[in-house]
Protein backbone atom coordinates (compact mmCIF):
# COMPACT_ATOMS: atom_id res chain seq x y z
CA UNK A 1 0.00 0.00 0.00
CA UNK A 2 1.53 3.33 -1.02
CA UNK A 3 1.63 6.41 1.20
CA UNK A 4 -1.10 8.25 -0.73
CA UNK A 5 -3.56 5.36 -0.25
CA UNK A 6 -2.61 5.06 3.40
CA UNK A 7 -3.25 8.79 3.87
CA UNK A 8 -6.63 8.48 2.13
CA UNK A 9 -7.67 5.63 4.45
CA UNK A 10 -6.49 7.61 7.48
CA UNK A 11 -8.44 10.66 6.30
CA UNK A 12 -11.60 8.55 5.91
CA UNK A 13 -11.14 7.04 9.35
CA UNK A 14 -10.63 10.45 10.96
CA UNK A 15 -13.76 11.78 9.27
CA UNK A 16 -15.69 8.79 10.57
CA UNK A 17 -14.65 9.51 14.19
CA UNK A 18 -17.17 11.80 15.88
CA UNK A 19 -14.66 13.31 18.34
CA UNK A 20 -15.27 14.18 22.00
CA UNK A 21 -18.76 13.57 23.35
CA UNK A 22 -20.50 16.63 24.92
CA UNK A 23 -20.74 16.44 28.72
CA UNK A 24 -24.56 16.55 29.06
CA UNK A 25 -24.53 16.15 32.86
CA UNK A 26 -22.17 13.17 32.75
CA UNK A 27 -19.50 14.82 34.96
CA UNK A 28 -22.06 15.82 37.61
CA UNK A 29 -23.38 12.26 37.79
CA UNK A 30 -19.89 10.83 38.19
CA UNK A 31 -19.03 13.39 40.90
CA UNK A 32 -22.17 12.36 42.81
CA UNK A 33 -21.04 8.73 42.80
CA UNK A 34 -17.49 9.52 43.89
CA UNK A 35 -16.72 7.86 47.25
CA UNK A 36 -14.58 9.45 49.97
CA UNK A 37 -10.88 8.99 49.35
CA UNK A 38 -9.31 6.61 51.79
CA UNK A 39 -6.26 8.20 53.38
CA UNK A 40 -3.28 5.91 53.31
CA UNK A 41 -2.50 4.89 56.92
CA UNK A 42 1.19 5.40 57.62
CA UNK A 43 1.48 4.57 61.32
CA UNK A 44 2.06 0.79 60.77
CA UNK A 45 5.06 1.60 58.56
CA UNK A 46 6.60 4.03 61.03
CA UNK A 47 5.97 1.83 64.07
CA UNK A 48 7.52 -1.11 62.15
CA UNK A 49 10.61 0.94 61.35
CA UNK A 50 10.88 2.07 64.98
CA UNK A 51 10.46 -1.44 66.37
CA UNK A 52 13.00 -2.80 63.87
CA UNK A 53 15.52 -0.12 64.79
CA UNK A 54 15.06 -0.79 68.54
CA UNK A 55 15.37 -4.57 68.05
CA UNK A 56 18.50 -4.06 65.94
CA UNK A 57 20.00 -1.75 68.55
CA UNK A 58 19.27 -4.17 71.40
CA UNK A 59 20.79 -7.07 69.45
CA UNK A 60 23.95 -5.11 68.64
CA UNK A 61 24.29 -3.60 72.12
CA UNK A 62 25.41 -6.90 73.58
CA UNK A 63 27.79 -7.63 70.69
CA UNK A 64 31.49 -7.36 71.75
CA UNK A 65 32.46 -6.62 68.13
CA UNK A 66 30.37 -3.47 68.00
CA UNK A 67 31.54 -2.27 71.41
CA UNK A 68 35.19 -2.94 70.65
CA UNK A 69 34.87 -1.37 67.22
CA UNK A 70 33.19 1.72 68.57
CA UNK A 71 35.80 2.16 71.34
CA UNK A 72 38.69 1.68 68.91
CA UNK A 73 37.16 4.16 66.52
CA UNK A 74 36.67 6.76 69.26
CA UNK A 75 40.30 6.22 70.39
CA UNK A 76 41.54 6.63 66.81
CA UNK A 77 42.79 3.05 66.71
CA UNK A 78 42.04 1.44 63.29
CA UNK A 79 41.54 -2.13 64.42
CA UNK A 80 39.70 -4.77 62.36
CA UNK A 81 36.53 -4.31 64.43
CA UNK A 82 36.59 -0.51 63.97
CA UNK A 83 36.98 -0.90 60.20
CA UNK A 84 34.13 -3.48 60.16
CA UNK A 85 31.81 -1.07 62.00
CA UNK A 86 32.80 1.71 59.59
CA UNK A 87 32.21 -0.52 56.53
CA UNK A 88 28.78 -1.60 57.81
CA UNK A 89 27.79 2.04 58.34
CA UNK A 90 29.12 2.95 54.88
CA UNK A 91 27.24 0.05 53.30
CA UNK A 92 23.97 1.08 54.96
CA UNK A 93 24.44 4.69 53.85
CA UNK A 94 25.07 3.51 50.26
CA UNK A 95 21.95 1.36 50.33
CA UNK A 96 19.89 4.32 51.56
CA UNK A 97 21.38 6.49 48.79
CA UNK A 98 20.57 3.93 46.05
CA UNK A 99 17.04 3.51 47.39
CA UNK A 100 16.55 7.29 47.47
CA UNK A 101 17.79 7.71 43.88
CA UNK A 102 15.59 4.82 42.64
CA UNK A 103 12.51 6.32 44.30
CA UNK A 104 13.29 9.76 42.85
CA UNK A 105 13.60 8.29 39.34
CA UNK A 106 10.17 6.67 39.61
CA UNK A 107 8.47 10.02 40.34
Amino acid at each position, binding site marked *: MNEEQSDAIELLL*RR*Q*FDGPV*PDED*FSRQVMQRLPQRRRRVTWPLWSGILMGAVACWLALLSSPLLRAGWQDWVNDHWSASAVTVLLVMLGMAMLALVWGVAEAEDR
Partner: protein
Amino acid sequence: MACVADSAAEAHIDRALVTRVLLGDDRSAFEQLLRRHQGMVRAQLRRLLHGDAAAADDLAQETFLLAWRKLDQFRGDARFSTWLYRIAYTCFLQVCRKTAMLAGDADEGEAENVPAPAHAMDLQLDLERAMRRLSAAEQAVLLHCVQMELSHEETAYVLAMPLGTVKTHAMRGKAKLKTSLAAWHEAAGKEKAS
Protein backbone atom coordinates in the same frame (compact mmCIF):
# COMPACT_ATOMS: atom_id res chain seq x y z
CA MET B 1 5.42 22.82 16.88
CA ALA B 2 2.62 24.81 18.55
CA CYS B 3 0.61 21.59 18.77
CA VAL B 4 3.44 19.85 20.67
CA ALA B 5 3.71 22.84 23.03
CA ASP B 6 -0.07 22.77 23.60
CA SER B 7 0.07 19.07 24.33
CA ALA B 8 2.92 19.57 26.82
CA ALA B 9 1.00 22.40 28.51
CA GLU B 10 -2.13 20.24 28.75
CA ALA B 11 -0.11 17.40 30.29
CA HIS B 12 1.39 19.87 32.76
CA ILE B 13 -2.07 21.10 33.80
CA ASP B 14 -3.23 17.50 34.26
CA ARG B 15 -0.24 16.67 36.44
CA ALA B 16 -0.87 19.76 38.59
CA LEU B 17 -4.51 18.76 39.02
CA VAL B 18 -3.53 15.20 39.96
CA THR B 19 -1.10 16.56 42.56
CA ARG B 20 -3.87 18.73 44.01
CA VAL B 21 -6.15 15.70 44.34
CA LEU B 22 -3.46 13.56 45.94
CA LEU B 23 -2.10 16.15 48.36
CA GLY B 24 -5.23 18.02 49.30
CA ASP B 25 -7.95 15.45 48.64
CA ASP B 26 -9.31 18.12 46.27
CA ARG B 27 -12.55 16.92 44.67
CA SER B 28 -12.89 20.04 42.54
CA ALA B 29 -9.47 19.30 40.97
CA PHE B 30 -10.71 15.82 40.07
CA GLU B 31 -13.89 17.33 38.65
CA GLN B 32 -11.73 19.49 36.38
CA LEU B 33 -9.82 16.40 35.25
CA LEU B 34 -13.12 14.65 34.64
CA ARG B 35 -14.53 17.54 32.59
CA ARG B 36 -11.33 17.80 30.56
CA HIS B 37 -11.23 14.13 29.59
CA GLN B 38 -14.75 12.71 29.71
CA GLY B 39 -15.46 13.60 26.09
CA MET B 40 -12.62 11.59 24.60
CA VAL B 41 -12.96 8.66 27.01
CA ARG B 42 -16.65 8.37 26.14
CA ALA B 43 -15.88 8.71 22.43
CA GLN B 44 -13.24 5.96 22.72
CA LEU B 45 -15.68 3.63 24.48
CA ARG B 46 -18.52 4.41 22.05
CA ARG B 47 -16.29 3.38 19.14
CA LEU B 48 -15.11 0.25 20.95
CA LEU B 49 -18.73 -0.67 21.71
CA HIS B 50 -19.84 0.06 18.12
CA GLY B 51 -21.96 3.08 19.03
CA ASP B 52 -23.72 1.71 22.14
CA ALA B 53 -23.85 5.07 23.96
CA ALA B 54 -25.53 3.81 27.15
CA ALA B 55 -23.07 0.96 27.68
CA ALA B 56 -20.18 3.27 26.82
CA ASP B 57 -21.31 5.84 29.42
CA ASP B 58 -21.65 3.13 32.07
CA LEU B 59 -18.10 2.01 31.34
CA ALA B 60 -16.89 5.61 31.30
CA GLN B 61 -18.37 6.12 34.79
CA GLU B 62 -16.60 2.98 35.96
CA THR B 63 -13.38 4.24 34.38
CA PHE B 64 -13.48 7.54 36.26
CA LEU B 65 -14.43 5.89 39.56
CA LEU B 66 -11.45 3.55 39.14
CA ALA B 67 -9.22 6.48 38.24
CA TRP B 68 -10.35 8.25 41.44
CA ARG B 69 -9.55 5.19 43.55
CA LYS B 70 -6.22 4.41 41.87
CA LEU B 71 -5.01 7.95 41.29
CA ASP B 72 -2.00 7.45 43.56
CA GLN B 73 -0.82 4.81 41.07
CA PHE B 74 -0.54 7.42 38.31
CA ARG B 75 3.20 8.05 38.21
CA GLY B 76 3.34 10.44 35.29
CA ASP B 77 5.26 8.11 32.94
CA ALA B 78 2.41 8.56 30.42
CA ARG B 79 0.05 11.47 29.82
CA PHE B 80 -2.95 11.46 32.17
CA SER B 81 -5.31 11.09 29.19
CA THR B 82 -3.38 8.04 27.97
CA TRP B 83 -3.55 6.55 31.47
CA LEU B 84 -7.33 7.06 31.43
CA TYR B 85 -7.67 5.45 27.98
CA ARG B 86 -5.78 2.45 29.31
CA ILE B 87 -8.18 2.09 32.25
CA ALA B 88 -11.14 2.51 29.88
CA TYR B 89 -9.78 -0.13 27.50
CA THR B 90 -9.17 -2.52 30.43
CA CYS B 91 -12.79 -1.99 31.59
CA PHE B 92 -13.95 -2.63 28.02
CA LEU B 93 -11.96 -5.89 27.83
CA GLN B 94 -13.47 -7.05 31.12
CA VAL B 95 -16.97 -6.47 29.76
CA CYS B 96 -16.02 -8.29 26.56
CA ARG B 97 -14.79 -11.26 28.54
CA LYS B 98 -18.01 -11.32 30.52
CA THR B 99 -20.31 -11.09 27.54
CA ALA B 100 -18.04 -12.91 25.07
CA MET B 101 -18.56 -9.99 22.73
CA LEU B 102 -15.23 -10.59 21.04
CA ALA B 103 -16.71 -13.80 19.65
CA GLY B 104 -18.39 -11.48 17.15
CA ASP B 105 -15.74 -12.67 14.69
CA ALA B 106 -18.21 -15.49 13.95
CA ASP B 107 -20.04 -13.35 11.38
CA GLU B 108 -16.77 -12.49 9.66
CA GLY B 109 -17.46 -14.80 6.72
CA GLU B 110 -20.86 -13.25 6.19
CA ALA B 111 -19.33 -9.79 6.17
CA GLU B 112 -16.87 -10.82 3.46
CA ASN B 113 -19.79 -11.30 1.07
CA VAL B 114 -21.04 -7.75 1.36
CA PRO B 115 -21.60 -6.48 -2.19
CA ALA B 116 -19.46 -3.70 -3.60
CA PRO B 117 -20.72 -0.17 -2.99
CA ALA B 118 -22.75 1.58 -5.62
CA HIS B 119 -23.02 5.20 -4.49
CA ALA B 120 -20.51 7.61 -3.06
CA MET B 121 -23.04 8.56 -0.37
CA ASP B 122 -22.56 5.11 1.15
CA LEU B 123 -18.82 5.45 1.61
CA GLN B 124 -19.00 6.04 5.36
CA LEU B 125 -21.36 3.11 5.82
CA ASP B 126 -19.05 0.87 3.84
CA LEU B 127 -16.09 2.03 5.85
CA GLU B 128 -18.03 1.18 9.01
CA ARG B 129 -18.75 -2.30 7.65
CA ALA B 130 -15.16 -2.73 6.50
CA MET B 131 -13.97 -1.76 9.98
CA ARG B 132 -16.14 -4.46 11.51
CA ARG B 133 -14.51 -7.03 9.25
CA LEU B 134 -11.16 -6.30 10.88
CA SER B 135 -10.02 -8.25 13.90
CA ALA B 136 -10.77 -6.70 17.32
CA ALA B 137 -7.07 -5.88 17.78
CA GLU B 138 -6.82 -4.17 14.36
CA GLN B 139 -9.94 -2.14 15.09
CA ALA B 140 -8.57 -1.08 18.47
CA VAL B 141 -5.19 -0.11 17.01
CA LEU B 142 -6.74 1.95 14.18
CA LEU B 143 -9.11 3.64 16.63
CA HIS B 144 -6.30 4.76 18.92
CA CYS B 145 -3.56 5.37 16.33
CA VAL B 146 -5.54 7.01 13.56
CA GLN B 147 -8.88 8.22 14.88
CA MET B 148 -7.75 9.36 18.34
CA GLU B 149 -4.36 10.38 16.94
CA LEU B 150 -2.23 8.74 19.63
CA SER B 151 1.35 7.81 18.81
CA HIS B 152 2.27 4.15 18.25
CA GLU B 153 3.99 4.17 21.65
CA GLU B 154 0.93 5.57 23.41
CA THR B 155 -1.31 3.06 21.63
CA ALA B 156 0.99 0.26 22.77
CA TYR B 157 0.66 1.56 26.35
CA VAL B 158 -3.15 1.84 26.19
CA LEU B 159 -3.66 -1.58 24.63
CA ALA B 160 -0.84 -3.22 26.63
CA MET B 161 0.63 -4.53 23.36
CA PRO B 162 4.23 -4.67 22.13
CA LEU B 163 5.11 -1.70 19.90
CA GLY B 164 5.90 -3.98 16.94
CA THR B 165 2.47 -5.64 17.19
CA VAL B 166 0.78 -2.23 17.17
CA LYS B 167 2.63 -1.22 14.01
CA THR B 168 1.80 -4.54 12.32
CA HIS B 169 -1.89 -4.29 13.23
CA ALA B 170 -2.02 -0.69 11.97
CA MET B 171 -0.45 -1.65 8.64
CA ARG B 172 -2.57 -4.79 8.16
CA GLY B 173 -5.74 -2.99 9.20
CA LYS B 174 -5.20 -0.21 6.68
CA ALA B 175 -4.31 -2.72 3.96
CA LYS B 176 -7.52 -4.68 4.63
CA LEU B 177 -9.58 -1.49 4.56
CA LYS B 178 -7.95 -0.55 1.28
CA THR B 179 -8.91 -3.94 -0.19
CA SER B 180 -12.46 -3.68 1.14
CA LEU B 181 -12.86 -0.20 -0.29
CA ALA B 182 -11.10 -0.97 -3.58
CA ALA B 183 -14.33 -0.50 -5.54
CA TRP B 184 -14.50 3.10 -4.30
CA HIS B 185 -10.94 3.70 -5.36
CA GLU B 186 -11.62 2.36 -8.84
CA ALA B 187 -14.79 4.45 -9.12
CA ALA B 188 -12.89 7.55 -8.07
CA GLY B 189 -10.20 6.76 -10.67
CA LYS B 190 -12.81 6.39 -13.42
CA GLU B 191 -14.47 9.66 -12.40
CA LYS B 192 -11.12 11.42 -12.61
CA ALA B 193 -10.43 9.88 -16.05
CA SER B 194 -13.82 10.94 -17.46
